[in-house]
């Protein structure tokens, strides 16, 4: 991860009075800059409140999933040094995706602009003052935490399929609920957007919820195709314009992995009654036509050889190519508590060139993201080019999420085990369409 200008500010400050110490918050390092690099006054009222209100309070408010309320100066001020650390390290807002590497045009990108990070850092360096209360901005309309992420732009989902309720105990083994819900889904209709949303406290215990469109085959068995893949923190999927992701089957098959005791702030180590997960689908009109078909696919990275020794590290790689051109519309790496980084590259055999598409240096299982590329930036991949995915695992004490660094870790279903795969939304192209998209992209640049 390339460190920001802000980071160097802190370092320069520390060279005059270098203080490095561990804070009590899960062993993180607190860089305490004594002297501010920026001497212009920065106040909460005039500069910082807007940033926190627009980016933080959505979760850090009463009833929110954040562990503290940041909706006013009095509530923010005690946390100022930690806020500075989290923001400077780009741990908050929780959207881990490296800057200045690969594709940066993303939909639903929560990352703070560098300017805003610098403002917060300067504010704390200067003493975290309130400033003139008359300059406080009004709190923006906050999203209803129970609302669908795409409601503002797409309205309510056309179809909502709820899982059957399950009680999750306060502790114990991971749980997996597999359910087939006869939903009457419109087979063949093109999907506009998808979101999986655990209700209420279920947010903390639902580790992942993979869904499939399902239908009975002639032999009485079940055929199914991936519908969407949710893991803790995921925002949802938007299918690009001009693309059809068809509904494959009339039923929805749920595969919900729950982690008793939960992670995150709310409902820790508490029983969660009637855990329900909702699946929302926004549909295109019945007469919607698109010549590009999209599907969601998961590809593996050496899962059979995924072994992480005690107090050790490991890396996995996976390779996949297509015999026809494709466009990669999204990238979602997946792992568990030891995984901490991921990347996606494309190797072009004809030229020998490798292009780094996406890099996530501080990946966390608590905040899975499916990184949705803007349509004009999504990689156009010629036939035969190779997707190369890499993931890194840390089983040392330095990994703050590590439940037990003394253990050997290998592939498994539980949160304590590991996995190594990535999920991509792939738009399948023919050569003509591929060339059209390439020409269009070249003319736009």
């Amino acid at each position, binding site marked *: 991860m390339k460190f920001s200008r802000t980071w160097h500010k802190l*370092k320069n400050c520390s060279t005059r009075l270098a203080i490095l110490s561990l804070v009590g918050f899960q062993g993180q390092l607190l860089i305490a800059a004594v002297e501010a690099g920026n001497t212009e006054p920065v106040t909460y009222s005039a500069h910082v409140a807007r940033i926190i209100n627009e980016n933080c309070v959505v979760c850090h408010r009463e009833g929110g999933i954040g562990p503290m309320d940041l909706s006013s100066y009095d509530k923010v001020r005690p946390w100022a040094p930690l806020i500075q650390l989290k923001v400077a390290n780009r741990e908050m807002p929780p959207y881990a995706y490296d800057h200045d590497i690969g594709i940066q045009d993303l939909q639903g990108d929560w990352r703070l602009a560098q300017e805003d990070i610098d403002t917060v850092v300067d504010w704390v360096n200067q003493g975290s003052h309130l400033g003139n209360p008359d300059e406080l901005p009004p709190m923006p309309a906050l999203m209803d935490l129970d609302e669908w992420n795409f409601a503002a732009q797409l309205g309510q989902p056309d179809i909502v399929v709820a899982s059957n309720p399950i009680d999750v105990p306060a502790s114990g083994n991971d749980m997996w609920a*597999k359910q087939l819900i006869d939903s009457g889904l419109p087979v063949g209709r093109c999907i506009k957007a998808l979101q999986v949303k655990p209700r209420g406290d279920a947010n903390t215990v639902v580790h992942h919820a993979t869904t499939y469109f399902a239908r009975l085959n002639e032999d009485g068995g079940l055929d199914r195709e991936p519908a969407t893949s949710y893991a803790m923190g995921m925002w949802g999927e938007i299918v690009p314009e001009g693309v059809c992701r068809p509904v494959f089957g009339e039923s929805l098959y749920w595969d919900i992995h729950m982690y008793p005791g939960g992670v995150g702030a709310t409902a820790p180590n508490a029983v969660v009654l009637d855990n329900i997960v909702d699946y929302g689908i926004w549909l295109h009109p019945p007469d919607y036509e698109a010549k590009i078909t999209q599907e969601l696919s998961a590809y593996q990275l050496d899962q059979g050889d995924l072994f992480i*020794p005690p*107090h050790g590290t490991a890396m996995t790689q996976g390779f996949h190519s297509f015999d026809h051109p494709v466009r990669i519309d999204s990238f979602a790496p997946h792992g568990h508590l030891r995984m901490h980084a991921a990347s996606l590259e494309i190797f072009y055999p004809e030229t020998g060139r490798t292009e780094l598409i996406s*890099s996530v240096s501080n990946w966390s299982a608590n905040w899975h993201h499916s990184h949705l590329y803007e349509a004009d930036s999504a990689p156009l991949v010629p036939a035969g080019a190779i997707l190369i995915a890499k993931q890194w695992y840390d089983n040392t004490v330095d990994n703050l999420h590590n439940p037990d660094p003394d253990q050997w870790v*290998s592939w498994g279903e539980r949160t304590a085990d590991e996995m190594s795969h990535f999920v991509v939304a792939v738009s399948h192209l023919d050569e003509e369409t591929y060339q059209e998209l390439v020409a269009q992209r070249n003319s736009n640049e």
Partner: protein
Amino acid sequence: MRRVSTCIACAVFVLVNTALLVDATAQQSTRPLRPPPSEGMPVIPFMEGWYANEDGSVTVSFGYQNRNAEDVIIPSGENNRIEPAQLGGMQPEIYFSGRHTGVFAVTIPASMQSDSIWWYLKTGDQEELKVPGNRSSDAYELDRNPLPLGSMQPLVWFEARGSGPEGVVAQRIRTVSVDELLSLEFETEDPSVRDLSNPLIADSLDTRVYWYKHQGPGEVTFIEHAASPFIETPFRTTRASRYPPTMPVASTAISISAGKGPARVLVKFSEPGDYMIRARVDNWAAPDSGGLFQCCWSNAYQRVRVSE
């Protein structure tokens, strides 16, 4: 992946560059990025998880992975031991190729709860590997509760009923001569309560019993009992079929109709000595049950003393 930075303060963070991608310094070996060999790999011990018992004791489940194409023999002793020693004795001596969960368990008495037990395993001249067993992170906590679709650990018994990885050990030691056929039997019942109207669940799910040599010096041959015919089992997983890493199965298995009834097999031994036979009873045919879900199966152990 974080790039190496020249920032001094950054040196205190964990920085992983492309130079060394697999680091096993704690176990004194490196594992380069290339396909591993099919032999000569150390067997890896795994602590699967722990159960909190009502009497304050903790039962720790152990398994292993043998990445070699062939089975590996590691007799009990210095290269295969539990510390403290008084809690040892149930670890296997033959390590079948593949990943095997919950092969044995150790119960730590309440009086020793503050202690960790360790399983040490050394394959030939390879490095000694070890894993601790204790009431550790919640992430490793297991339980005996029904799963969402009702699956539970099958009950097994010779005398008193038991279940889970620790299962039951027959009180009576059976005796037999070399190459003489011995009939083994125990009872099993699947207590799972399932909603048969659920389209994901087949009617009257059968359980399966797999027979393994667990300890002993010689070859063990399992022969079909007339009342418990062998069934065809999935092809034994090899390294060529790595993903998904399915649980390999023994080459001998029987089916228990509707999960209730006796499990029987005939067995003979090639050498004199003390043996232990393990039977794993599972209900992995249910969609919510499987080895890597850490539920649901139970072990039944039978000691056999073989004479000339």
